[in-house]
């Protein structure tokens, strides 16, 4: 078997990013849309850690830690907004929340 190069990791990262984007664009259920956002952020982290390891430089991993922090804040706030939305209009379908739509 071939040894694993950074290109393998980058290809995996692109594939994960595309899957996550597909989830955000295609799904109606808002909870699953938020999960797809986590997938996207994980794809970014794979990328950062790959280059960090390849160049023997820890700064990429530091950046990954910040990305994880932002992901946590985003998940907490997004789910809070979801609960607030659900209280006003009991649906989690993204295309049924259209109060602002003309």
């Amino acid at each position, binding site marked *: 078997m071939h040894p694993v190069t950074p290109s393998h990791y980058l290809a995996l990262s692109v594939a994960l990013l595309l899957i996550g984007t597909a989830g955000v664009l295609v799904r*109606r259920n808002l909870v699953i849309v938020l999960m797809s956002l986590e997938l996207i952020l994980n794809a970014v982290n794979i990328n950062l850690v790959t280059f960090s390891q390849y160049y023997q430089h820890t700064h990429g991993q530091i950046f990954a830690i910040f990305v*994880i922090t932002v992901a946590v804040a985003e998940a907490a706030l997004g789910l809070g907004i979801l609960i607030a939305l659900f209280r006003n209009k009991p649906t989690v379908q993204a295309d049924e929340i259209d109060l602002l739509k003309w």
Partner: protein
Amino acid sequence: MLDTAFFYAFALLVLGGALLTITQRNAVHSAIWLIVSLIGVAGLFLLQKAEFLFAVQIVLYVGGIMVLFLFVIMLVNLDEAARVRQFRGRWWVALGCLALVAAETAYFVIKGRDAFRFAPRPEMPASPLGNTEQLADVLFSTYLLPFELASVLLLVAIVGSVVMAKKRI
């Protein structure tokens, strides 16, 4: 080689888990498959000798965020949502655009294969410190200000989510 085998095993976990996450009808099943995918990512971190991020990934993502997701799934009643249409009306437009982006990326990477190479990696002596110590050294010196700002961000997120989830503000 063992490394390669592990890489492909973890890649399978990551991509398979991700695909099942976005296709499952039931949100709880989605969350379980997302856990599988995140554990795969943690394995990739371990494979690249980023042990601290591996631990953070397991504790924070699998232990923290996923529990949060599962709680919200229990709070908002999703039985109704599992019975209706799962995909948006014009989902094929979105998938077509994504396929276009993927094809474009693949085309240019293959076409420009000769120009596409990484900068030479610097020859540095292996540090005697472990991964966590190295990260701490950089995080608490060069990145001290962003680190403090991250704590402010988390505070804002805490206050914000409490305000959001309160019945009457």
